[in-house]
């Protein structure tokens, strides 16, 4: 009563009198929280992976048998021998060679498939090809591994092409990993190319450009960031692919650059050693985590380079 009000005695407009009774928003908040939890899961798991890798990796380097310089420069990787050597170079080399072969296969096939589907195929053909491609993406990688070992190496490389390759070899592993990642590259690249506005194509066709010129000079440059994203995603899958290389490429850590020989990748070492009889807590066991950490760094760097690349070269069309 101390503060006199002009509206004293008369009920002024309230939120309720104007908008009606307030609704309780518990449902809204619960949904927002549930969605936040879903998004947080991947972040938490990533952090967890880094933490668990880091702990074991530090323990690995604390081991007497290991030196950081030997790890980085030594050309021998024999962690399970009685006189173990921990030079990661053969594994890194194997990974890079096989991933490189995979990308040599997957980039032209994937981008070519994407360009065909987006620019050349009639709606009917597209309807038939896209599900087939997705089917390929759904084939378990272990199947690809045995396909490489029991068909591709003997029948195609040794038989049809008459190449002098080992039963286990990096070439077959790399090529089949490449085939394996074609759907990834193609699907992301195709999305990017289809998203290029029709008005840009019309502009180019209107100037007398042929379909090839429109595709190569307009659509691909405009979709470059998406295409690069597809290639990087494919490269990450190639670097991380385990089963195919474990089965088809052999398990010989070597510094040889010849892909006709058996070679071992980082993931193949992790897979083979992890399922073997290496005692928990031993140096060999810790080496799994050290290799895993190195692999993690490699894919991280790969992703960072590609993000920079995309920022630098992408063409904004809106």
């Amino acid at each position: 009563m101390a503060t006199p009000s002009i509206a004293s005695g008369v009920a002024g407009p309230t939120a309720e009198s104007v908008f009606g009774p307030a609704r309780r928003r518990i449902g809204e908040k619960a949904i927002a929280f549930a969605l936040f939890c879903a998004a947080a899961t991947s972040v938490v798991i990533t952090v967890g992976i880094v933490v668990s890798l880091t702990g074991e990796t530090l323990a690995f380097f604390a081991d007497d048998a290991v030196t950081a310089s030997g790890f980085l420069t030594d050309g021998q990787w024999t962690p399970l021998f009685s006189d173990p050597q921990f030079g990661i170079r053969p594994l890194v080399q194997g990974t890079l060679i096989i991933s490189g072969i995979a990308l040599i296969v997957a980039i032209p096939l994937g981008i070519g498939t994407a360009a065909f589907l987006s620019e050349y195929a009639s709606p009917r053909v597209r309807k038939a090809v896209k599900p087939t491609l997705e089917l390929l993406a759904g084939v378990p990688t272990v199947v690809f591994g045995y396909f490489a070992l029991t068909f591709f190496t003997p029948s195609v490389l040794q038989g049809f092409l008459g190449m002098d390759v080992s039963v286990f070899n990096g070439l077959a592993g790399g090529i089949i990993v490449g085939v394996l990642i074609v759907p990834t590259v193609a699907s992301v690249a195709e999305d990017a190319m289809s998203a290029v506005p029709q008005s840009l194509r019309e502009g180019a066709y209107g100037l007398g450009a042929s379909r090839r010129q429109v595709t190569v000079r307009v659509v691909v440059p405009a979709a470059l960031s998406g295409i690069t994203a597809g290639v990087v995603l494919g490269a990450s899958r190639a670097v991380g692919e385990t089963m195919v290389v474990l089965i088809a490429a052999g398990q010989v850590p070597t510094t040889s650059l010849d892909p006709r020989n058996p070679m071992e990748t980082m993931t193949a070492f992790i897979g083979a050693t992890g399922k073997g009889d290496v005692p928990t807590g031993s140096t060999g066991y810790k080496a799994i985590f050290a290799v895993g950490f190195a692999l993690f760094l490699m894919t991280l760097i790969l992703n960072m380079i590609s993000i920079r690349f995309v920022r630098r070269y992408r063409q904004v069309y809106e």
Partner: protein
Amino acid sequence: MSDDELTPASTLREVSDSDSSSSEPRDEPGLPAVPGEVPAVPAGQPHAPVPVVAHADVIDDAIDNPVFITEKLSVSYGTAPAVLDVSLRVPEKQITAFIGPSGCGKSTIIRCFNRMNDLIPGAHVEGTVRYHGVDLYGSDIDSVQVRKRIGMVFQKPNPFPKSIYDNIAFGPKVLGMKGSMDQIVEEALRRASLWDDVKDRLKDNAFGMSGGQQQRLCIARALATNPDVLLMDEPCSALDPISTGRIEDLMHELKETVSIVIVTHNMQQAARVSDRTAFFIVDMGSSEEARIGRLVEYGPTDRIFTNPHDIRTEEYVSGKFG
């Protein structure tokens, strides 16, 4: 239909008078020299279901320098016809405007002139389009070759996400044109009166330009390949009045060297810029899908706007519908 019914449209005459100087080729023996004084012309086939007006009266296309001649041109998408039986002659080195309400098929017809409809799956063209006497849809015609001669400017400015220079150079490079590219680019930009605006930032991305500049860049891009015809599909609909005015001025300059066909929603624009105007309507069928575009009337712009012979043209140009 008597002539004094047609006065509501006469207010538009002032703006279209400036164009009348370029209308000599319309006057042909046997046809009305003065719009409005129509002698009894023997009725040809009635084009639209309006019994009082003879065909040659509403479709006045007696010109002796046609760049395009369409005969019974119809376009359908899938099974649905979009526009039916368009027969007209488009003159060389003049500006021809296609006007009419949305969905009347005016853009569809203009897209037959450079075979742009080929890019739309399911589009089907019947009838003929002759370009300098050659059937554009003949079996020996490559649509890519057609578009080299007949440039197009679109509704929304659509520069490529490249530099200003590379936008202009695109066409000449694609066509493998000989000569100094710098010179080709400069000339195209000058023709589109854009050179002074951009000469210091040729390497900048075209998306940094204003909408009006982007559209003039698209015109320059089309001019760089030295086309014979420029098709403009509502080129100013996304632009402000000042930019629109600049593009209209540009069109007046360009018609010295190229034939222009412009589709526009804007009647005043048609009246201001064009020498001849074609008016299309939508025939409302039983359902929304059954909308069919038809050509109603075609003739010198000042006649279409001041003395339309078809009641539907009159109602449209006087603002009663559309």
